[in-house]
């Protein structure tokens, strides 16, 4: 009798190219590539589901406002408070507005917005599309001659791609206001002086690069959430997994993209 190892390596039995695990990874990567390519194809083809895009923008943007406002404001206050002692050692607390503005505009606002959106919006998309998949609602859409990819995926990815940069600008403003309140309470700096220093410290490139990053983050969160949900399987367990892995994968990719974007932007600085 042949051993198990011999069995799997014999030419007749071998059903993998590299190894079963690696084959699966490459197959998954190819499927993601196809998913993204289909998005870019469908997004330009009519019919345009404008009403659904607007509804999704409302879901992603407006409904995230309370959470994102609170988080942005607290980050502004906490970051200012935590930075003060280090600057105070050198008698440089007057640099606080510059420090805060650079930190918030260049990194904190895009990252915080993306992470909150990945948690709130990404998981929601994964769970919603996952449950639609396992309860055959996506099939029902398809047999009623509606393109479910266009109606469910394209609209959601567009919404995150448009709304996360907008939310990021909002977080920037709210966090800077939080920073101002803290500085005003401790150093009695006026509103005009604070914002003059804030805008002197940052350049157009800082805001522009953060916007571009946010577009990328928004696209990533939308694609990951929709991909995980759209191809969900294994019943209710699959829905939970889709929601969970949407958040984990999106957050992981956001950090990787932030790291890469930082390297690229530094080339232009």
């Amino acid at each position, binding site marked *: 009798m042949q051993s198990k190892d011999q069995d799997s390596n014999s030419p007749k039995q071998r059903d993998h190219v590299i190894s079963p695990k690696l084959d699966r990874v490459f197959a998954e990567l190819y499927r993601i590539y196809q998913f993204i390519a289909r998005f870019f194809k469908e997004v330009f083809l009519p019919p345009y589901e404008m009403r659904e895009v607007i509804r999704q923008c409302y879901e992603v943007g407006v409904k995230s406002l309370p959470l994102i406002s609170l988080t942005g404001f607290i980050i502004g206050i906490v970051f200012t408070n935590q930075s003060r002692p280090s600057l105070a050692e050198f008698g440089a607390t007057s640099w606080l507005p510059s420090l805060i503005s650079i930190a918030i505009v260049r990194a904190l606002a895009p990252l915080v917005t993306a992470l909150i959106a990945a948690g709130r919006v990404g998981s929601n998309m994964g769970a*919603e599309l996952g*449950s*639609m998949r396992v*309860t*055959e*609602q996506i*099939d*029902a*859409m*398809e*047999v*009623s*001659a*509606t*393109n479910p990819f266009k109606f469910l995926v394209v609209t959601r990815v567009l919404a995150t791609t448009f709304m996360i940069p907008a939310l990021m600008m909002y977080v920037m403003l709210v966090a800077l206001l939080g920073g101002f309140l803290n500085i005003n309470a401790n150093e009695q700096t006026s509103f005009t002086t604070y914002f003059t220093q804030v805008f002197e410290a940052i350049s157009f490139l800082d805001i522009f690069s953060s916007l571009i990053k946010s577009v990328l983050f928004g696209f990533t969160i939308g694609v990951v959430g929709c991909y995980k949900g759209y191809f969900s399987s294994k019943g209710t367990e699959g829905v939970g997994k889709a929601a969970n892995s949407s958040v984990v994968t999106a957050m992981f990719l956001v950090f990787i993209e932030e790291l890469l974007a930082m390297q690229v932007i530094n080339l232009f600085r």
Partner: protein
Amino acid sequence: MKKPPHQIDKSQKVIEIEGLRKSFGDLHVLRGVDLDLYKGENLVILGKSGTGKSVLIKIISGLLQQDEGRVNVLGQDVNQLKPRDLDQLRLKIGFSFQNSALYDSMTIRENLEFPLVRNLRNLTRKEINERVERVLDAVGLLQSINQMPSELSGGQRKRIGIARTLILTPEIMLYDEPTAGLDPITCIDINNLINEVQERFHTSSIIITHDLTCAKTVGDRVVMLLDGQFQRQGTFEEVFNTQDERVKLFHDYNFID
């Protein structure tokens, strides 16, 4: 309730299937299925769970692709159609899903309007309302128009699912386990509804089930799917008048159950 008499046009085939094969990995589900559905006919496909009954109607509606064989619906080869032509064909096919597949986030009205507003874009609001109310009336659930799917019972959801397929006035109806998970009284209601739909909308239907009462009540012809092939076909009595143990067991178990 006994099935009301109606006309079957044996000269006109609405669905023709030849040599259909479908496998999922090593699992060979359909192994050379041949089938014709005639205009005005209610065809019941019987078989155990996991024998490929649902796979068959998913192939007919273009949700799945066969490995081999030909599926011709209303004179068109489903596999050869471009996406736009397939969508046009799908407007003539109503698919009632096993779990109704109603859109959770929409009211019953929105569920019914969804295929209408997407496919018949020149309809006025008044015409849309009329159509929605007409099909809801046909399934006896006009009063539920503003409810959410989660507020309805299983039987009501099935009825709404059927209403949603009827709104585009299809020529062919595909029912996937219409009585699965329902109590016997609601099963009778659903069986009657299938007959009413056939009578009122002049549809030709394929009904997938393992419920023999349903098969007896709604089927003009019954076929039995065993080991990936249709083993027996005819009227209900003809199919079960056999010494084949597998068929007899199916019959006995169903009625004991």
